[in-house]
């Protein structure tokens, strides 16, 4: 503080525009909740949300095309809008747009969250046709946090983004229209475990700040070689940071929340969480472990090996024992987090890092679309009490609704990584990057757990097509325009990325070519 003058910070508003649009629309959404009459709210929220997400997406593309990739962090070094960040923003925004079409379905959300389940209040609320239209601004706030999280260039911004991302999601999880006890329980569990893990993240930040004297990722990186005698702080700090981040991606041993939350949350919200949060969280994991702690890779890599192996094995094996479709997809998502972690470990020389990064980016795009599609199908298979979650209810679906069951089977094959689906190229790219960095044992475990995973995917397909439908089996709801658009889009993306992956692969290559800005 010399001279008493404080310079005003410079903020590159143009670079941050996609994020600002999303946050701006969220705030307008809150105002709509406050001032618009009840019957108009949804009609205002819906276009506002979609236009904001689409606008932000187009701006992201425009930025990447017109201005190229910036070489310095924006906003006084707080936010890094670089190639990987722009690519991740693109995926998140398009997936959020698609999920919004699902969330628009009236059947998904509770009429009045404050009404106790089974009470007269609830009946009254349902009869009056109330709706919790707050889901739209909550969704936008959460998406805003997801955009900031992988682009954060210091640990404080990352922590704030983590909370902005998570807090609306905790609430959204508790708003299911049917099976409200499950939904509320999912919300409580997610909240308590999420708050617990973010406390770990924060204490890790504190210790690393103590070590490096700064929370800037670049400053942390350059302090690694210069600070002496404080290694305990650094190691414990790294471990705690890792706990917070690995919790968000649902890596074992921090995966316990995932099946519970995925099952209890409204399926449209599960679709949003399962796709976009994973994308955002991997962006942040990469930034912390590659940019800030990249020179420490000899120390964190063995631990990450263990985590990756455990995650793949736990995800694949526990998925076999599941009898609930959403829980099964949750364990499958845990296994996929493990496959992606093999890419995070595959560091080496610059060229190697590029390959690994572009593989992860492509995998995230492919996996995100397939996931949204799979959960969209789950919303359509219903019986009297809402969605038919139990696997036995899905028996013979192929005879009742051949098209829907066929599409779902296709998504499952993509999860399993069968050639001609997007999952194949994703897995191939990540595993070949891992092989190139001498992580062969990891790839062997990965391939074996893929094979185990393929077993339970195929089991569902067999169940759908080769068993007799139950007499009182679930009906397939006539999909709304939004839901069918989501399924069609996801199926198209899975086919195109599987048959003709070249454009997206080269886009991912370009995004990864300059790695992360420092």
């Amino acid at each position, binding site marked *: 503080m010399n001279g008493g003058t404080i310079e005003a910070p410079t903020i590159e508003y143009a670079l941050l525009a996609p994020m600002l649009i999303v946050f701006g629309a969220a705030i307008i959404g809150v105002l709509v909740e406050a001032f618009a009459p009840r019957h108009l709210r949804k009609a205002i929220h819906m276009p506002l949300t979609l236009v904001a997400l689409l606008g932000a997406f187009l701006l992201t593309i425009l930025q990447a095309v017109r201005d190229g990739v910036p070489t310095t962090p924006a906003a006084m070094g707080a936010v890094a809008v670089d190639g990987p960040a722009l690519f991740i923003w693109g995926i998140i925004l398009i997936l959020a747009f698609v999920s919004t079409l699902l969330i628009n379905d009236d059947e998904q959300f509770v009429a009045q*969250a404050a009404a106790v389940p089974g009470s007269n209040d609830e009946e009254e609320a349902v009869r009056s046709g109330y709706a919790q239209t707050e889901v739209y601004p909550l969704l936008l706030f959460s998406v805003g946090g997801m955009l900031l999280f992988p682009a954060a260039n210091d640990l404080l911004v990352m922590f704030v983004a983590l*909370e902005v991302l998570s807090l609306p999601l905790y609430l959204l999880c*508790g708003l299911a229209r049917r099976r409200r006890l499950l939904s509320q329980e999912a919300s*409580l569990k997610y909240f*308590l475990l999420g708050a*617990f893990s973010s*406390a770990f993240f*924060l204490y890790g930040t504190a210790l690393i*700040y103590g070590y490096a004297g700064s929370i800037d990722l670049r400053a942390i990186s350059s302090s690694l070689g210069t600070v002496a005698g404080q290694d305990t702080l650094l190691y414990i700090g790294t471990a705690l940071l890792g706990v917070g981040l690995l919790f968000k991606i649902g890596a074992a041993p921090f995966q316990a929340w995932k099946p519970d939350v995925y099952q209890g949350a409204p399926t449209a919200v599960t679709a949003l969480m399962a796709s976009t949060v994973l994308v955002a969280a991997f962006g942040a994991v990469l930034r912390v472990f590659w940019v800030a702690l990249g020179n420490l890779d000899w120390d964190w890599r063995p631990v990450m090996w263990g985590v990756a192996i455990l995650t793949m094995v736990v995800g694949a094996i526990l998925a076999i024992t*599941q009898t609930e479709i959403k829980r099964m997809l949750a364990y499958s998502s845990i296994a996929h987090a493990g496959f992606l972690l093999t890419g995070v470990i595959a560091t080496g020389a610059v060229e190697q890092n590029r390959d690994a990064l572009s593989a992860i980016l492509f995998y995230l795009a492919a996996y995100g679309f397939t996931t949204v599609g799979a959960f969209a199908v789950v919303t359509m298979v219903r019986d009297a009490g809402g969605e038919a979650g139990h696997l036995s209810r899905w028996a013979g679906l192929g005879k009742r609704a051949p098209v829907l069951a066929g599409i779902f089977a296709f998504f499952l094959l993509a999860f399993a990584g069968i050639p001609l689906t997007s999952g194949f190229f994703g897995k191939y790219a990540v595993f070949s990057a891992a092989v190139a960095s001498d992580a062969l044992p990891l790839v062997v475990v990965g391939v074996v757990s893929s094979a185990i995973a393929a077993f339970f995917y195929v089991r569902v397909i067999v169940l759908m097509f080769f068993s007799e439908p139950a007499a009182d089996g679930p009906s397939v709801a006539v999909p709304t325009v939004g839901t069918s658009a989501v399924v069609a889009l996801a199926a198209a993306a899975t086919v195109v990325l599987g048959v003709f992956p070249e454009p997206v692969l080269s886009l991912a290559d370009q995004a990864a070519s300059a790695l992360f800005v420092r």
Partner: protein
Amino acid sequence: MTTHYLVLSALLFAIGGIGVLVRRNAIVVFMCVELMLNACNLAFVTFARQHGNLDGQLIAFFVMVVAAAEVVIGLAIIVMIFRTRRSASVDDANLLKY
């Protein structure tokens, strides 16, 4: 001499962490999380003193705001559960398993 403060902060963090794991009432669990956040604040402020820069004190303010936001969300969820089940015990919320 900032070591004492760091030890205190580590102790608070550990007490909070153990509390989250052993206590059964959701409100108490949540208070333990808040204790952990405050332990972080103490560590930040101590390190700011040690390094002679203001970053740590600045972070402490952000953490307070985030913690306040978390309280709003958390209490809403816990009250919702309590009204439904007439209990805030985390052991009673056991429908989702296996």
